[in-house]
């Protein structure tokens, strides 16, 4: 229960931070992109890290996690952070493979923590820290969290297909949500029909965003989606087997 509440709080916080600019009567438009969210991003970041730690503490207290699970989380986080350095075309990144598989094998909380913490670590070891970071952490966390909610089909091939499908969908969705952190803040003189303007209705806003997404982001995100599908198809099965083999050791029962 506490667990769900913490994940919910983190998610709501992130959503609020992403969407409040749309409600501002005079959005601070025309800012150079890196300045977007410069005021609130650090706060969101700190709150998010605190909530991640709270999730770990809550799981430890309720004995859903123990030192072994934490060790696995730590090792996988480190590995995933390093995987981000693998170059690929467009938005391809190996960083979603493990959160999807682990989230599915070990549950939504583990998936969320692995996704967001590995983005944090990889940012610190070289990928770069900026106002985008808390949103990246949240989006990657959601990728792992939803993977944990997916059902487990009885047939291993169906399971892989389902995960690959989620890999494709999340590859696109990650980009679609991530764009929002800067989209409402840019408004160059030309092409204003693809940018946000204050006072625009929901439908007009969505139409403009769809156009913006198709023109600027789709190709980039498609490579990420394809990369996810490819990696899951190639490595999904042995990795899931290995993860589940370890899972059996996480807890013991008294008879």
């Amino acid at each position, binding site marked *: 229960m506490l667990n769900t509440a913490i994940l919910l709080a983190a998610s709501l916080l992130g959503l609020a931070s992403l969407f409040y600019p749309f409600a501002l009567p005079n959005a601070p438009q025309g800012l150079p992109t890196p300045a977007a969210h410069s005021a609130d991003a650090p706060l969101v970041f700190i709150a998010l890290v605190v909530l991640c730690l709270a999730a770990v503490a809550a799981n430890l207290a309720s004995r859903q996690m123990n030192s072994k699970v934490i060790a696995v989380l730590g090792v996988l986080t480190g590995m995933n952070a390093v995987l981000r350095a693998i170059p690929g075309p467009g938005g391809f990144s190996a960083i979603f493979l493990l959160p999807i598989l682990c989230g599915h094998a070990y549950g939504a909380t583990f998936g969320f923590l692995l996704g967001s913490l590995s983005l944090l670590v990889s940012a610190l070891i070289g990928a770069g820290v900026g106002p985008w970071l808390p949103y990246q952490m949240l989006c990657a966390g959601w990728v792992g969290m939803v993977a944990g909610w997916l059902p487990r089909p009885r047939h291993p091939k169906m399971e892989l297909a389902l995960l690959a499908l989620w890999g494709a969908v999340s590859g696109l969705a990650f980009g679609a949500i991530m764009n929002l952190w800067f989209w409402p803040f840019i408004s160059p003189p030309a092409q204003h029909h693809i940018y946000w303007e204050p006072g625009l209705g929901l439908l007009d806003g969505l139409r403009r965003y769809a156009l913006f997404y198709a023109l600027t982001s789709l190709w980039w995100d498609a490579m990420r989606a394809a990369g996810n599908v490819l990696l899951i198809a190639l490595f999904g099965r042995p990795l899931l087997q290995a993860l589940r083999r370890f899972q*059996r050791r996480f807890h*013991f029962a008294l008879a």
Partner: protein
Amino acid sequence: MSSLAASFQGVHYKYPDAQQHSLAGVTLELPEGAFVLVVGPSGSGKSTLLRVLNGLVPNFYGGVFGGVARVCGRDPVALGPRGMSDVVGFVFQDPEAQFVVDSVEDELAFGMEMRAWPQALMATRVQEVSELLGITELLGRRVSSLSGGQRQRVAIAAALALRPKVLVLDEPTSQLDPAAADELFDALLALNKEHGLTVILSEHRLERVAQYADIVWAVRGPGQPVEAGEPRAVFRTSPLAPPVAMLGRALGWEPVPLTVEEARAQARPELLEAKKDGRRPPAPGPVRLAALGISYSYGERKALRDVSVELHAGEIVAVQGHNGAGKTTLLKCMLGLLRPQAGHVLLDGKKVHDLPLPEVIRKVGYVPQNPNSILFQETVLAELQFTRRSHGLKEIDYTAFLSRFGLAGYAESYPRDLSQGERQRVALAAILVAEPEVLLLDEPTLGLDYAQKKELIGFLRELRAQGVAILMATHDVELVASCADRTIILSQGQVVDEGPPGAVMLRHERYASQIARLFGDGLRLTVEDVLESTGRC
């Protein structure tokens, strides 16, 4: 009345996803200060039983645990390894698995660091335990540069650094040479008798340790009750017993002897005098593999100095020697894994380093000391299939093949989850399934019990009859006694003796089997030999 070091009441345990219980209805009591020997076939649950003592089972392995366990008045199941670490020292079968840091000195201090002991005390303890185990000269070395036996001693010293009340050792001498094993038992005995340390150890090579134990725990098999008793009582009936006890049982001696001295006191003179023909070594075939004056150094350290070895088709040659004498290095050079700095190795008359790798691999099979290093498939069956396929050989009846190694039920198991002895056999099977003509084995009996060793010996003899050339590095004198045609003693990288095992055992008491020491005629080396000769006279 001394208090209890450990007690088990109705303990049962099942590994996750296991079909059957590893422990069931285990009830034992152990007084403080006892020296306990745990015996049982490979895979019978010895290691599992030991791992309950510090809570690794079930805290690390998962599964289902039942019953009550108490060690030094604490509950290892509730406290886990962390809560037991100051009273129970643990030395694993595979010492490599328990090393955390790079240097030997840091490794010895690691446990104390974790408990935040003052530095001065740590320095004293490091010195103390390294003297106790005779590893002071290793303190500055890196763990990765040590030989198997040196690693084992470092692991034991590290376990003793916290001065536990109970020391648990899982087959501690499996990688030690006979002299080092005796030294280790002397050290353990001193700790036990003088410092009151409770010692619990499992061991397959009973000839080394039977006489030291106060109590024997006989584990019959997975899920069967553990029987506790005096060594003499247990070894009167146990299927596993030291060679002299086996001989005593076969010849009806009472009480059953546990040492060579006891056996000598009971043997009738005519038995000792009786002679039999020496084993006739088979006519050697052509030379398959030869090392000609090879030398090899790891940096400054000379591992091999001008060593020449010939290996003929249809013979079994043993390489014996101290830990770190260069046995493994010799094997690796003969395989072409290491390139000697001087001299060369010939495979069928051609320099092994000039041959294309596939040709070497097709002819020569190598089973390294650590079976994990060659096991990487998902199932045991897949290991065998992989070897056959990568050698371009056609499929065979794997079930029949596996059953020869006592692995029939394990075809679908994950190799790395098996016990040490089982993994050893999987590695052996995975190499032998490629039908190599030359076989190099590094400590092939590590973790094997008597029955499996017997089976291995039968298998090696069969391969020899088929003309396979076998070279094995081993500390196991009983293995050498029962199947080697020749043995080579290495010391500090040099060949110091070579000849038929009987003759070499006469010259080197340390490398003599129990039976060879009992008779001292260089002819009777095993219980089998003796029974054959008595049958004849």
